């Protein structure tokens, strides 16, 4: 469907990095054709949730119309079809992450649930009072609070690896935090606020040198470049469907088979058991042990469709296109007086957080909205990071494969207009 050898002519100003045809991509996302306040939608909040291509929208509808039934239960035809499609998606995800086996793919509802699963199952089984979990200063609340719950519940300690003023992990400081009491490193792969790409391989290697397993939060990472969990040698990896052009309600926890095998169940219920009796219950093998109850079946199918969709592209071409948007927008925003960008790491995904002198991010968000531009404003569920920089909120533009330089131009014009408005 998305064979890019066929290059169509784009609009002026569009970027054609590595033969990437953004006009054609945009045509796949019907929402991009709509207007808000009589202006063309400029959607720059894909970091919060990405828009969906027809392949996902229509594919999910088709599944619900034709193939839907509960899975893993029925002996009848439809249930078998639905089960096959559900399990085929597990294989799709395994290929997408280059996991060793589909059995290493656990479906969750989102990254938040994936991390809570890990904390509740792995954490409670392996951590004791005084043990430590190492995170970074730029984590999303979803990778802070589950560990804080374990602080309260079993007395572990959360240690925070610092970052520099450009928003980069201080690797030496991180290494110093790894000690005999460190039981897990839980770190973002790409900062949702600053776009910083963390040195995942180094993070993993340094932890493994001391026998410590690593979880990477890939919520913002999988959409911007290809992720290979075997190459990273990471022990756990979490991502979510809706930031990857898929539906909400489905996420993934990858775990190495040997680690998942020794993890106790997270939630009890149907579908995760081998046998149940009042004398005792036995549990299924991973990944089913961690998927209690009827899962989000249509959403899992939708995630598979989203992965199929982006697999039709060269991930390197997507990355090059987004990198062009990042450098172009960063340069043009930097020219605006009183504008400060937070996050100037050497390796960045196309996420730009900024503040404007004299204009609070919320006011800016309300203003640019009237120009049809959707950006996120606030603390981005990363309050410790905001505190690190001594700010309460930023405006954040996050780019996806369907964005153009014209989207960036619209944002820049609206920011300048906002400055005139607040004079």
């Amino acid at each position, binding site marked *: 469907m998305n064979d890019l050898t066929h290059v169509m002519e784009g609009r002026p100003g569009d970027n054609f990095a590595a033969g990437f045809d953004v006009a054609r991509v945009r045509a796949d996302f019907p929402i991009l054709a709509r207007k808000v306040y009589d202006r063309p939608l400029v959607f720059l909040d894909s970091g919060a949730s990405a828009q969906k291509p027809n392949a996902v929208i229509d594919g999910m509808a088709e599944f619900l119309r034709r193939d839907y039934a509960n899975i893993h239960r029925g002996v009848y035809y439809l249930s078998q079809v639905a089960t096959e499609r559900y399990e085929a998606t597990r294989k799709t995800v395994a290929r997408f992450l280059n996991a060793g086996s589909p059995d290493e793919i656990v479906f969750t509802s989102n990254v938040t649930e994936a991390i809570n699963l890990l904390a509740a199952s792995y954490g409670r089984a392996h951590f004791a009072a005084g043990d430590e979990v190492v995170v970074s200063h730029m984590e999303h609340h979803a990778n802070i609070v589950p560990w804080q719950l374990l602080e309260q519940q079993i007395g572990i300690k959360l240690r925070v690896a610092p970052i520099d003023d450009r928003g980069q992990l201080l690797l030496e400081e991180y290494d110093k935090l790894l000690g005999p009491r460190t039981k897990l490193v839980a770190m973002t792969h790409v900062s949702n606020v600053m776009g910083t790409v963390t040195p995942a391989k180094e993070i993993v290697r340094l932890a493994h040198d001391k026998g410590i397993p690593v979880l990477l939060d890939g919520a913002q990472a999988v959409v911007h470049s290809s992720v290979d969990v075997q190459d990273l040698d990471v022990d756990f990896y979490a991502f979510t469907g809706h930031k990857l052009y898929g539906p909400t309600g489905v996420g993934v926890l990858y775990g190495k088979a040997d680690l998942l095998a020794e993890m106790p169940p997270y939630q009890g219920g149907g579908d995760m058991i081998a046998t149940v009796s009042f004398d005792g219950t036995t549990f299924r093998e991973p990944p089913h042990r961690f998927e209690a109850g009827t899962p989000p079946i249509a959403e899992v199918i939708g995630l598979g469709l989203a992965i199929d969709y982006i697999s039709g592209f060269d991930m390197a071409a997507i990355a090059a296109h987004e990198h062009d948007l990042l450098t172009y927008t960063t340069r043009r925003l930097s020219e605006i007086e009183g504008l400060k960008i937070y996050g100037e790491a050497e390796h960045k995904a196309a996420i730009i957080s900024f503040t404007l002198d004299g204009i609070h991010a*919320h006011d800016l968000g309300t*203003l640019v909205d009237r120009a049809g531009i959707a950006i996120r404003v606030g603390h981005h569920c990363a*309050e410790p990071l905001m505190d690190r920089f001594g700010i309460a909120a930023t405006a954040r533009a996050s780019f996806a494969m369907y964005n153009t330089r014209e989207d960036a131009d619209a944002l820049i014009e609206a920011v300048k207009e906002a400055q005139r408005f607040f004079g």
Partner: protein
Amino acid sequence: MFDDLRDLYQEVILDHGKNPRNLRQPADANRLAHGDNPLCGDRIVVYLTVGDDKIIRDVAFDGRGCAISMASASMMTEILKGKTVEEATRLFDSFHKMCTEDAFDPEAETETDPDDLDRLSVLAGVREFPIRVKCATLAWHTMNAAVNGRDRASTE
């Protein structure tokens, strides 16, 4: 581009937002409360100096936020000075209705000074922006907590 936002951002709001009055920490304050808007991370502290006669001698605030929350806090400090605690609470109730109820009728607010409501009516534009209502009411929620002996308020 933003002309239809002039109702929300009236000149008075821009002025108070840029030059907030009573943005300070009075040493003699005897009531204070912290206010949080968990949605956006705005934090505010409201300080009150209340006499034995229940009259508010001084009101001030500290914090940072958007133009609307700063303007609302700033105007609140000007209006409440000299009022009794009961009057402040009643004005909070009326102001809250003004920011949230489309059918709000200032004439029906017989317990509050119409001039005060008139001054605050520049903030009523938030009614059209549900997500911004909390910006306009955070300082007031916090003040209300302080005069009623609570030390925390949240817009949630």
